[in-house]
């Protein structure tokens, strides 16, 4: 790809990129992907998606093509993209066809988590795997709020708007998620 065009796409604002996507400009979609695919990938992984992760990241950005028309013009599309990712996870969870894959994934989650997490020592790997598993044991609703607000830094208001739930529900789920994590992690915390 032309480096100049690519640099221009990276300098453009999110609303401008989204407007070009609506007009059918694929280069703009590539620009948005470069800007946010790390965030989307990390969010999906924290939400417990392992198998078909790459596919799901791509599906999120393909969804943008149809959804861009309804973009509300906010300066950063990050929260909006995470909301799309959360919807994709919910959709995937509901899909009966993926049940088998998820079952297989669940059975091997411990080993996978150990492979995925970068750490120099065995103790470190085990500790991180334990943290990751504690996160995965939260109910999907609590996990999605905890990951969005506490880990990804989305504001409560933005998460409420993105997930379509009242703000007070966000705080309640966050409170219960923390309570559960503190109970599960116990001495791992100071």
């Amino acid at each position, binding site marked *: 790809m032309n480096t100049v065009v690519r640099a221009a796409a990276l300098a453009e604002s999110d609303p401008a990129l989204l407007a070009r996507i609506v007009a059918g400009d694929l280069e703009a979609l590539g620009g948005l*992907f470069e800007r946010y695919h790390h965030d989307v990938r990390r969010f999906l992984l924290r939400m417990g998606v392992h198998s078909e992760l*790459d596919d799901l990241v791509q599906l999120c950005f393909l969804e943008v093509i149809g959804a861009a028309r309804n973009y509300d013009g906010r300066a950063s599309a990050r929260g909006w993209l995470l909301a799309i990712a959360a919807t994709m996870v919910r959709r995937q969870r509901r899909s009966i066809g993926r049940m088998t894959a998820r079952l297989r994934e669940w059975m091997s989650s411990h080993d996978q988590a150990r492979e995925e997490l970068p750490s120099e020592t065995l103790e470190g790997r085990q500790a*991180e795997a334990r943290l990751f598993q504690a996160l995965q044991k939260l109910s999907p609703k609590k996990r999605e709020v905890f990951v969005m607000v506490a880990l990804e830094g989305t504001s409560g208001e933005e998460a409420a708007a993105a997930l379509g739930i*009242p703000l007070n529900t966000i705080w309640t789920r966050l*409170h219960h998620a923390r309570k559960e994590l503190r109970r599960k992690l116990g001495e791992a*915390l100071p």
Partner: protein
Amino acid sequence: MSCSRLWQAEAVEDGRIDALDAASFERHRLQCSECAHEASVLRALRDTLQRVQPREPSPLEQRRERAELLRRANQLMLARRDAPRRPLLLSAAAALVALVTVSLAWRVSHSPSAASTTAPVFELRAVGGASFHDQSRGPSGRVTLTSGALAVHVEHLQRGQRFVVAVPDGELEVHGTRFIVEVEHAHTQRVLVTEGVVSLRLSGGAEHQLIAGSSWTRPPPSAPDSALLVATRTADDAEKARQSTSAPPDAPRALAARADERAPTSAARLRRSHGATHARDTSEQSVSAASSVAAPAAVGGSNAPTTSNAPLEFAAAMASFQTGAYLDADERFATFAARFAADPRSEDAAFLRAVIATKRGDAAAAVARARDYVKRFPSGLRSAEMQRLLNAPW
């Protein structure tokens, strides 16, 4: 020994308390080992889980993924573009279906019961006291609010229907929703949306879309316009504002009392359903808090507390609490708990009344309310915090 401010550690971590309270807690934390520990545990929980970073794909993998995305997007777009090239038979069938649909739509739109000619169904409720005029005409619902707070519920709007609340400094366009709007000194002070979406257009400002659960509060005069959305006045600001006005601190109560004098109940409600079910009122209807009290009887409404009022009343109390109007919030929570004792939010009301007493430095009331909470909700969500409050060294 347990600190009564322990709950603020989580509120600060969430970013759900205002800067003044957060700063106050930070100062307190330096002297309170328990709060310092709680805050550090919450921070450690976040930091520890954030440290678990999944493996990032290599630059080569990223390039491959990007190329694959663009290939799939291109395919998708081509498929959409190719969609019209269908066999002739299919196109003919689609045209036939479209023709039938258009003709049906035309017949529906020209029938006397068409949605576009009926008036929107809405319900207005003065919160405390309000002065408003209903100027609805045809399918356009329009209410002008000149002062006071008004809780509005607009049922889902049909095609062609509109509903606008005109305020002295702008207007709110409603899209089938529940919300509360408050006007004071010819300026909109706050808007709280509990359901649906509201567009707030104030003169000289940009349009704000408020969705369910969000609120807008007028910032202090010096604040920039960008700070308007979900702005929250601090307790001190609210106190200063209260002191600077000529009205006595209990002015809202006096207003409500005046409404009470003129009517048997302060629940000023007006439910309107034009068109098919009621004769249209073409003349401008002027309604004040007092006169609207009579309206329910006229339209068969009831002043008895219904569960449909609960969200609005709780939201109004929450709005007062969030803007630091603690006296008003306390009164509203008490009313809510009395009227909707079976509602799950009455537990929150009981908890927040104890919090309000703590914030106001009224130890006796705080302890009494905490005791009441523990008695009524022994396994409640906040029972541990209430227990700590009971054991606090006042």
